[in-house]
């Protein structure tokens, strides 16, 4: 075959969406080992849960609209915030970026035809689904959904009559899904990079996924074992954490946060990776400080494993431990700050095209700055003693996780969506949705932080009169936010089914995914490319 014929073959290659495999229809998706189809399977599943989570949050806000009982009993409220937390963390954010964007783009961005273990990849999604089914079972059987909060603190979680055991087991299964994804990504990055794709030529999204993958593999087993121990404690009456049986409840908190604190970096690092892709593309220039951004991901993942005790300043752990954890916590701020400075510096002497993904990257920076800076307040021990377990914390982590990580995921949907389903979105409605989200988000969570500093505890079914006005503002904010979110989801669904056909490279991106057809063919590359330079090689002269 001549060179010409190869090029033709590439051009006429069937999109992965049209390929007929062993099965067709639904089976063609749920039994597909194609990383792109699995990415979309994850996308559909996590967004289904996201929508449920949104409404659970909305109902909680509605309950706070008036003092006393508004919509539901205290017990129902307690189950709602538990479910909201469990869904948003375990079912949405943790698999949210790695499972969707990671699965779809990790192989393409490093010039691979698939992940290293395609079948294991499918198994990850099936485990996710099994966890989901178990969680549904936990909600609708026996005594119903757990009412412990997503943290499952012992001894409350050992004593409550609700379906804690099943909920824990669902989280346990999800943990395996997460571990397998991490393992797969590590293997893929090490074994399947295209010729010439050295570590320092990998896109920054890959660096963030790679750092995340190590957290998934190393930290998730700890929480898996911990949850299993609580199950044993509940079913067999072994006294590990329950003081009534000689156990230590603080031990549970240590084990829980040894995973769950690194997990917050596991949630936010891929978001940072997305922003590191979007910014150079729309600035049309090379990213500023590539190595600093790349290695700060590793730094965050590393330091992030040593700071869990900052969740426990008032738990009764030793004062010395609290002081050491506070000291270490501040060091997470440094690599985070480095990233932010480099992103902003990338806009210097750029040629910026303001498209929806770029607006989301800016929104990410805006929220993440607030989330990160308020994190410094939480890290300072004396301040944290006051704000611990108040709305200040709730506001803070929604700024980092939701305003940061999830807004980055939204940006990715507009950025990579055209590549994934081959269709463009309606720009105006996307912008209106973003504006609604920004207004609602800040009204809701900034108000929460204000209330928290005034002493409004979290997980309160009711509120004292002095907090009433602020609760009103927050609830109205939630209406704007939910409207914006639903409008965005509508815009995306519309783009999938009715959008205009997307060109191969709508944004002028330089990474490998923009050099394959839209949507990509089954094995991405007919000929695996040879890499000769770094990822963001924009020309200095605009065409």
């Amino acid at each position: 075959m001549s060179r010409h014929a190869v090029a033709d073959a590439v051009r006429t290659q069937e999109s992965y969406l049209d390929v007929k495999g062993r099965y067709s229809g639904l089976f063609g998706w749920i039994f597909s080992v194609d990383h792109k189809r699995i990415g979309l399977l994850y996308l559909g599943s996590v967004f289904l849960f996201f929508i449920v989570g949104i409404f659970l949050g909305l109902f909680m806000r509605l309950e706070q609209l008036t003092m006393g009982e508004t919509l539901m009993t205290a017990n129902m409220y307690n189950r709602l915030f538990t479910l909201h937390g469990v869904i948003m963390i375990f079912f949405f954010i943790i698999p949210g970026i790695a499972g969707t964007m990671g699965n779809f783009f990790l192989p393409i961005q490093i010039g691979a035809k698939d992940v290293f273990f395609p079948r294991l990849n499918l198994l990850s999604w099936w485990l996710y689904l099994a966890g989901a089914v178990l969680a549904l079972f936990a909600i609708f059987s026996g005594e119903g959904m757990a009412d412990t909060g997503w943290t499952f603190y012992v001894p409350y979680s050992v004593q409550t009559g609700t379906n804690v055991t099943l909920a824990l087991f669902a989280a346990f299964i999800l943990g395996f899904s997460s571990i397998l994804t991490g393992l797969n990504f590590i293997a893929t990055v090490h074994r399947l990079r295209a010729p010439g794709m050295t570590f320092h030529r990998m896109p920054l999204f890959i660096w963030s996924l790679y750092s995340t993958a190590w957290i998934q593999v190393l930290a998730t087993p700890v929480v898996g074992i911990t949850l299993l121990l609580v199950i044993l404690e509940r079913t067999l009456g072994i006294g590990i954490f329950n003081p009534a049986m000689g156990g230590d409840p603080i031990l549970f908190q240590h084990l829980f946060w040894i995973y769950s604190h690194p997990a917050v970096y596991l949630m936010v690092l891929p978001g940072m990776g997305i922003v590191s892709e979007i910014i150079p593309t729309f600035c049309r220039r090379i990213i500023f400080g590539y190595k600093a951004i790349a290695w700060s991901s590793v730094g965050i993942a590393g330091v992030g494993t040593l700071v869990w005790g900052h969740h426990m300043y008032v738990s009764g752990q030793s004062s010395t431990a609290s002081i050491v954890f506070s000291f270490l916590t501040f060091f997470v701020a440094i690599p985070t700050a480095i990233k932010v400075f480099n992103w902003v510096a990338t806009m210097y002497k750029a040629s910026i095209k303001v498209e929806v993904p770029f607006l989301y990257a800016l929104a990410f920076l805006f929220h993440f700055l607030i989330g990160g800076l308020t994190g410094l307040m939480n890290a300072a021990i004396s301040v944290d003693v006051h704000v611990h377990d108040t709305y200040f914390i709730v506001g803070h982590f929604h700024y980092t996780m939701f305003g940061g990580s999830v807004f980055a995921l939204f940006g990715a949907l507009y950025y990579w969506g055209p590549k994934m389903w081959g269709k463009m979105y309606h720009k105006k409605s996307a912008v209106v949705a973003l504006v609604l989200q920004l207004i609602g988000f800040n009204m809701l969570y900034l108000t929460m932080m204000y209330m928290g500093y005034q002493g409004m505890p979290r997980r309160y079914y009711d509120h004292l009169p002095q907090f009433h006005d602020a609760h009103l503002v927050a609830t109205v904010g939630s209406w704007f936010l939910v409207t914006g979110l639903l409008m965005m989801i509508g815009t995306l669904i519309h783009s999938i089914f009715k959008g205009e056909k997307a060109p191969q490279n709508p944004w002028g991106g330089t990474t490998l995914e923009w050099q394959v057809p839209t949507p990509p063919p089954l094995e991405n590359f007919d000929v695996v490319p040879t890499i000769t330079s770094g990822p963001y090689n924009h020309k200095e002269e605009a065409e």
Partner: protein
Amino acid sequence: MLSGASSFASLVDDAFFFILVVSIIFFVGIVATMIYFVVRYHHTRNKKVKNIEGNLTLEIVWTVIPTLLVMGMFYYGFIGYSDMRNVPDDAMKIKVTARKWSWTFTYPNGYQATALTVPQGKAIKAEIESEDVIHSFYIPAFRVKQDAVPGRDTYLWFRATEMGKFDILCTEFCGDRHAYMLSSVDVLPQEQFDRWYANTGKQEISGGADLSKTGEKLVTLKGCIACHSIDGTPRVSPTFKGLYGKTETIYTDGKERQVRVDEAYISKSIKEPAADKVKGFENIPMPQQDLSDDEIEAIIAYLKSNK
């Protein structure tokens, strides 16, 4: 704004405002720079980009400056916290007992109350314990908080600087009535407190003239009314109003039976709360209470009177 009514308030607020000011400077600076760049280097104004790969000097500057600043923040937080953990020797010790869903404060002279009364300007050490799950003892106006952990003694201390009544809240989720596990701390001038405290010695827990009045005090002190209302309001457990003499459907070892609420039944329910469970409330665990026979007698007298 929330009042700062203890010697810690300014320590915490100063650390908070130091970080807040640094944060606002950085936030405004970064966001303004970002917006300026987006406008200045918009593709309509700047067609030719400059591919600057990085700048080592800048990387060092924006690593070192934040490092110094956060070390300052750590120090601020650390000195405030050291103060919080080092109790003055002359502190008055008050035992704080947390349970679902109420607080009991026990003074050195044995006096017990469900609200806290303290003198202004004197160090108070709260020795905190929990009877069931984890709770957290929080006084926002004093900027202090400490978990109450079953099986482990914890403490905090404070010196109230302002007179008045301030909220006490539970901040560790503990179940259905978590949001109602509230109390208050009343700060009195030293002399007024001394007079009040001298009178508390005369409080008799049991054996007083009117037994049912003693019982009424006891159900408050021991936290019973957190779950059992005294006026018929539905809460997580049967109300005390009209309970005595009523016929209830209960489960004993899983078997359903009818029982009349009499002296023997009440006494057994207090001593062995898990033995009989009232239908409709069978999943609500009642904590084991350490009550003397005299105290139980007083409570029975009270229940008889609450018709």
